[in-house]
């Protein structure tokens, strides 16, 4: 699955040398951010923070063996937040001309003057700002050009279409490569920037026809193209996933154990993080209010943040406000050890920022010794969920009801694909009733977890 043995092609395309960090570009952005901060001060703001980001990229798609789209991306944006005492205003634009910088600051100041004073508003505590900025190895420009990317996309799609005669149609394969520079500063003297890259390859194919048609996809994403799965592997995996769905049926309404495949399990953990995030807590719109230092998961569960992982997708030494990120346990022995807080939400709760303005960083769920096959065995008979649909998650009550598809499992062995069913429960009990966590970790996102087995949920079907 992780394609370690077959990334030759990706490596071949690493045909250009790039400096790992282009300091001149970072400095160019820093100058603009400093100008924004100076302008805010000039216009009377008592404090300010500003950001400037630039992103360049290429994405191509191929379908039925030929190129379908070639897109050149070029985005930039500046944003500024100003404070007049406890009053706050924010403005942003993609126009970075000197005139526009001034107008953007003016727009933010105008809003701040009308906004109500909020005793909790303000910049972070200076002692919390990051002071160490290790190179996290996040920037690996690929140097792939449109022709090469198209060739790779075609190779990927061919691998899927050629995998089995039952693959009947295709939505195509795409390859994208992005590289960006981000600078953030505030009027406390913080001014930092870094560059990062992100590349991906994906494929989506169909099998069957008429009412029996099915589609599925696969993708690989990495900061360094050398760590992408090969085009061949992505295509084959997409084909396998699509084929596995053919002849899916519904289930009768029942209660049974549910195994969330890793890419679905991350959503479950995401719902937990949403519920312990400052915004949900101070608004009292969380099913986990006042749950700090209480048991929210079984005692074998540990969930920790690893912001300084080298080369990972969620790595950063400081958060969206310049606050140092923390290597920390959020849950250990099943007990909630910390919330997920920004400066503002922390102040509202009478606490300290946890360095999570903008979200968590490489949130990692500690795995057990079970691989995917062992997890199926452990479940014995139940539902393996590989896709979820809809937004049926109520963060206030924890009520959970979503469309699902996947596979019916008996005696630890997959029997047949299922679709057009829902799974329902309440997140509070679902989390407490986690039986095991697999070591089949999905590393493609900011939440790293293996498959998760929940003891019992309500399945509605035909």
């Amino acid at each position, binding site marked *: 699955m992780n394609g370690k043995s077959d990334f030759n092609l990706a490596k071949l395309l690493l045909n250009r040398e790039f400096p790992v960090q282009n300091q001149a570009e970072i400095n160019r952005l820093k100058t603009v951010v400093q100008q924004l901060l100076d302008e805010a001060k000039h216009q009377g703001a008592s404090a300010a923070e500003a950001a400037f980001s630039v992103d360049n990229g290429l994405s191509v798609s191929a379908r039925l063996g030929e190129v379908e789209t*070639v897109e050149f991306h070029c985005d*930039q944006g500046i944003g500024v937040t100003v404070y007049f005492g406890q009053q706050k205003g924010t403005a942003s634009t993609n*126009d970075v001309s000197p005139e526009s910088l001034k107008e953007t600051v003016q727009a933010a100041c105008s809003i701040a003057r009308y906004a109500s004073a909020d005793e909790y508003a303000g910049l972070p505590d200076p002692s919390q700002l990051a002071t160490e900025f290790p190179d996290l190895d996040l920037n690996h420009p690929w140097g792939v050009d449109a022709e090469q990317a198209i060739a790779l996309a075609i190779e990927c799609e061919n691998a899927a279409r050629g995998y089995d005669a039952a693959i009947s149609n295709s939505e195509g394969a795409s390859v994208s490569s992005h590289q960006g520079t981000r600078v953030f500063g505030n009027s406390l003297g913080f001014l930092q920037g870094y560059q990062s890259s992100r590349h991906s390859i994906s494929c989506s194919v169909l099998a069957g026809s008429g009412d029996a048609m099915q589609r599925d996809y696969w993708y690989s994403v990495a900061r360094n193209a050398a760590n992408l799965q090969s085009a061949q592997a992505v295509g084959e995996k997409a084909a396998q996933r699509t084929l596995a769905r053919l002849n899916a049926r519904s289930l009768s309404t029942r209660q049974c154990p549910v195994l969330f495949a890793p890419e679905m399990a991350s959503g479950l953990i995401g719902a937990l993080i949403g519920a312990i995030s400052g915004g949900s807590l101070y*608004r009292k719109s969380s099913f986990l209010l006042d749950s700090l230092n209480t048991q929210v998961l079984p005692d074998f569960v540990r969930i920790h943040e690893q912001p300084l992982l080298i080369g990972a997708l969620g790595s950063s030494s400081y958060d969206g406000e310049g606050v140092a990120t923390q290597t920390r346990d959020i849950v250990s022995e099943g007990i909630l050890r910390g919330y997920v807080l920004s400066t503002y939400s922390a102040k509202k709760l009478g606490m300290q920022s946890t360095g999570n303005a903008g979200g968590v960083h490489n949130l990692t769920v500690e795995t057990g010794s079970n691989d995917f096959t062992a997890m199926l065995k452990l479940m014995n008979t139940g539902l393996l969920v590989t896709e979820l649909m809809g937004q049926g998650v109520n963060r*206030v009550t924890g009520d959970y009801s*979503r469309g699902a598809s996947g596979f019916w499992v008996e005696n630890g062995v997959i029997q047949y694909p299922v679709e057009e069913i829902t799974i*329902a429960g309440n997140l509070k009990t679902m989390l407490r009733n986690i039986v095991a966590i697999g070591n089949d970790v999905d590393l493609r996102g900011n939440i790293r977890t293996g498959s998760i087995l929940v003891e019992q949920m309500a399945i509605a079907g035909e």
Partner: protein
Amino acid sequence: MPLLEQVKHTILAANGLQTQDIDRVMATLLSVPVDAADIYFQSSHFESWSLEGGIVKEGSHSIEHGAGVRVVSGDKTGFAYSDRIELPILLEAANNVKAIVKHGQNVQHKIATPQNWPQLYQPLNPLKSLADQDKIDLLKRVDTATRKLDSRIEEVMVSLVAAYDNLLIANQDGSLVADVRPLVRMNVSVIMVENGRREQGSMGGGSRSDYSYFLENDRAFEYGREAVRQAQVNLQAEAAPAGNMTVVLGPGWPGILLHEAIGHGLEGDFNRKGTSAFSGRVGERVASDLCTVVDDGTLAGRRGSLSIDDEGTPTQNTVLIEKGILKGYMQDKLNARLMGVNPTGNGRRESYAHLPMPRMTNTYMLPGESEPEEIIRSVKKGLYARNFGGGQVDITSGKFVFSASEAYLIEDGKITRPVKGATLIGNGPDVLTKVSMVGNDLQLDSGVGTCGKDGQSVPVGVGQPTLKIDGLTVGGTNI
């Protein structure tokens, strides 16, 4: 045409460009044999104000502009965009994207560019329709009035947003068309607590007009009352049933059923590629003969409406399903050309930085003849779903979901107890064949819908009369 001149001034003159400069960029695009080419200029202003904890503590303002350059040859598309509307950059973009054309057909598909179309909204800037202080006062007044409605209210959140979009679209036939699109939206949500139980309610609305919309007919305060009513209902709600049962959907926003179950599946791109569960089924029965469904972009002032789409095609009222028979798809120019039909004014894009594709506008079902009460009375045991959150569809398998946020049991022809929100799941190509009664009470939604496709968000509308569906799976916990 004063609108065109106004937008040319806003977008071209402000960036030191002239009409001849557009011709130069277009000439570069057309220096290779292409089927279609366009340049999409955009300048947009956006603001939001939000109240929580009784104070307006946050506001934001943003300005974005840029241009997207596209060439199409056969089914191949080259696309580049820039936030700098400058001639050298546009020329470079044009040079980059035309490389997609390897073996051009050299067939210029000339689609007559319409000269006139109805303006469905005023070309006004809603951000300036109310003084900042008045926006804040409005939020505070809604907060105060809403809090008075029920002592169990713990938190009230009110938000107000407005967008002002100026567009200029240059097509390969030399035509230049403009649109100015205002859009406003307001939302009120409340959290209520009783005996340690916590529930929410939420209501909002909006239109392509200005902030005065919320002051008309007491709308802003009505959103507050409705949010409180929903939270009150939710405080009483029991576990929802699980399994297949008769479902009655209320009028208006539950039309999200149509958007998910059939709307996406009838977008031209999926059908050209043969990846939709509805592919190749024009002329076939896909719904009971009570069902006529349209996508209508021409409703004045509605959130999903557009005078012209993002390719310069005037919108229209497109019949998708007539008396149960599939009549046609929603098209942008590329897919219409490849399928040999006319564009339907459904070519939409989130912004200059995104490619257009077939998207819905306002999708709704025409009214039938049944009284809503009669429909409820006809159900011995089932679910009445009155309000919904979001939904999602798998275009290929046709499976769709949408999540109820307010629902009740129907027992012996009467609406009895409220039940918790549950996700409903069904199969697009056959759900409408199970429609056995259609109400005479067509309502459109209040103007809150946003549709996502391929990472692009666009505002849309939905609507329907009360509908009875003989068998839909309800995803509750009560087995």
